């Protein structure tokens, strides 16, 4: 075997052993993440989810029309003011304490559906907020709307807010 290729394989093998070995030895299974499943129509009728679920635009719209859940906007308040899904509650996870979160969710039961969104694409504040609500604040029915506000707005669905003047 070409000695250079052999050396490359040695570097990759050692890295693999240490990288995986380290996570096994430390027992840090939080490193390993699993895909979040999309909620099924059956699960939408059953109010006991075992973890946050993704939700698609059409399911979101149905829930909006049927007032089946509460929309939570996880973006910061400045962006929220410019535009958000009609009726959404603004909770920016990084700048909101647990007490304040509970205060904002006053009147919402722990098993009500909470549909959390942010800016779509790669934004992950909705996921962080969803996990926090599920794991630490005992809200059991967390739905993550990955398309977020841009997709909702693009479809022309009901929004509220004061768009910034771009002129």
């Amino acid at each position, binding site marked *: 075997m070409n000695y*250079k290729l052999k*050396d*490359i394989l*040695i*570097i*990759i093998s*050692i*890295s*693999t052993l*240490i*990288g*995986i070995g*380290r*996570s096994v030895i430390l027992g840090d299974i*939080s*490193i*390993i*993440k*699993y*895909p979040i499943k999309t909620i099924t129509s059956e699960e939408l009728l059953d109010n006991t989810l075992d973890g946050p679920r993704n939700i698609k635009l059409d399911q979101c719209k149905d829930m909006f029309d049927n007032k089946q859940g509460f929309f939570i906007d996880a*973006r*910061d308040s400045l*962006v929220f003011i410019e535009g958000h899904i009609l009726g959404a509650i603004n909770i920016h996870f990084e700048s909101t304490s647990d007490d304040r979160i509970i205060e904002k969710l006053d009147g919402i039961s722990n098993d009500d559906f909470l549909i959390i969104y942010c*800016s779509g*694409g*790669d934004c*992950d504040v909705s996921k962080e907020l969803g996990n926090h609500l599920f794991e630490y604040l005992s809200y059991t029915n967390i739905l993550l709307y990955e398309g977020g506000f841009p997709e909702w707005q693009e479809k022309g669905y009901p929004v509220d807010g004061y768009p910034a003047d771009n002129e």
Partner: protein
Amino acid sequence: MGAVFIYASYSKILDPASFSENIHYYGVTSIYIENLISLILPWIELFIGIGLISGFKYEASVDLSIYMMILFIFLITQAYLRGKSIDCGCFFSDINFEDAATKRFDMLKRILEDIVFMNLLFTLKYNINKEKST
């Protein structure tokens, strides 16, 4: 270049979960592969860095770093061309610009930065070949 690789590996080794998230947003592989890459790639970067500085497995480190740099340039470029606005996960993976335009500008900077790094690595490769031939 060795220091750059060691620096790049540092935060990823400490926080593979965030790095895995970064890989996820490139949208090029399954979540299970993302987990594996996030555990292994930072250590490869670390060994390359050590190799480039210490001279241990030097030639292989130079070659591997060039392959990786080509891969990084390809991944960021394809994400950029597909209209994504992501944190590249190149160094500290917890950088999170809210503004999509800032992120896209940052992606362009990273592409240019990687091209510069790749040129430096090719210079190292050229020097190795030159020494061999003399």
